[in-house]
C-alpha cells in the first residue's frame, strides 16, 4: 500500500527527512540524491541509531553513532562501525574506561544488518512510499 509521507519541497538537495508511515508507524529516512528520492529504514543496522541525524554524502549514508555506512540505493552496509577516539587514556577515569572497553567489545560482536529499503514514487510534488 502506498502512503503519502512528505512533499518534494520538504527535502533539500542532498538532504534527508525523517517520516513515519504505515499501520505500524514505521520510521523511514527519505534521502535526496541527484534529483531522486530514496527511502530506507531510519534505524541503523548496527545499534538502531537515528540515521537522519547522520551525514549523507551522495548515495552514502553515515551513521552518527559509530560511523557505519550504508548505500541508500540498495540499503547495503558498506562499512562497519569504527571506534571513537577517546584521547589520552590517562585522562579517562577508570570506571569510564571499563565501560568503553565493554562497549567496544560488544560493538565488534554486533552484526551490522543492511537497511530495509522502500519503493518510492513522486506525483504532483508529493512523495509516497510503499509499505
Amino acid at each position: 500500500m502506498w502512503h503519502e509521507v512528505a512533499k518534494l519541497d520538504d527535502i533539500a538537495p542532498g538532504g534527508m527527512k525523517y517520516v513515519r508511515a504505515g499501520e505500524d508507524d514505521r520510521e523511514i529516512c527519505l534521502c535526496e540524491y541527484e534529483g531522486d528520492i530514496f527511502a530506507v529504514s531510519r534505524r541503523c543496522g548496527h545499534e538502531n541509531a537515528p540515521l537522519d541525524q547522520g551525514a549523507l554524502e551522495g548515495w552514502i549514508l553515515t551513521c552518527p553513532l559509530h560511523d557505519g555506512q550504508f548505500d541508500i540505493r540498495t540499503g547495503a552496509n558498506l562499512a562497519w562501525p569504527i571506534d571513537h577516539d577517546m584521547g589520552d587514556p590517562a585522562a579517562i577515569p577508570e570506571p569510564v574506561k571499563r565501560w568503553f572497553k565493554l562497549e567496544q567489545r560488544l560493538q565488534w560482536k554486533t552484526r551490522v544488518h543492511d537497511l530495509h529499503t522502500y519503493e518510492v514514487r513522486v506525483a504532483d510534488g508529493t512523495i509516497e512510499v510503499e509499505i
Partner: protein
Amino acid sequence: MGTAERKESLRYLYDKVVDPLGFKFTPDAALAEELLEQEVKLEQDLGAPYCPCQMRSRVRGEDMRIVCPCIPFHRAHFDKMKRCWCGLFVHKDVTDPDSLPQFPPDEE
C-alpha cells in the same frame, strides 16, 4: 559488507577529497583496483582503510595520518613526487605513473 560495494563507495568518497587537492586516481586501473581491494581488507581487519604500503605504529594519532587518502598529512612530499606513496593517487597532469620518481620523506 561486500568488497565490491565497499570499493565503489571508497572510490566515490576519495574522489571528493583528492580532486580539490589536485590529485586523481592513477591511470593504472589494475593497480587502483588492487590497492582499493587491499584497503577494504585492511578496513575489515583493522577498522580503517590504512595505506596498504605503510606500517602502523599502533599509536592512534600517528596511524590516523596513514588512513587513505592521506594526502593532506604528507602534502609537500607527495606534491614533489606527484604521487602518493602507494601510487593510488597522482597529480592530475600525470599520464604515465611509472615514470614518476619515488624517494623517502627525509629527502624532500
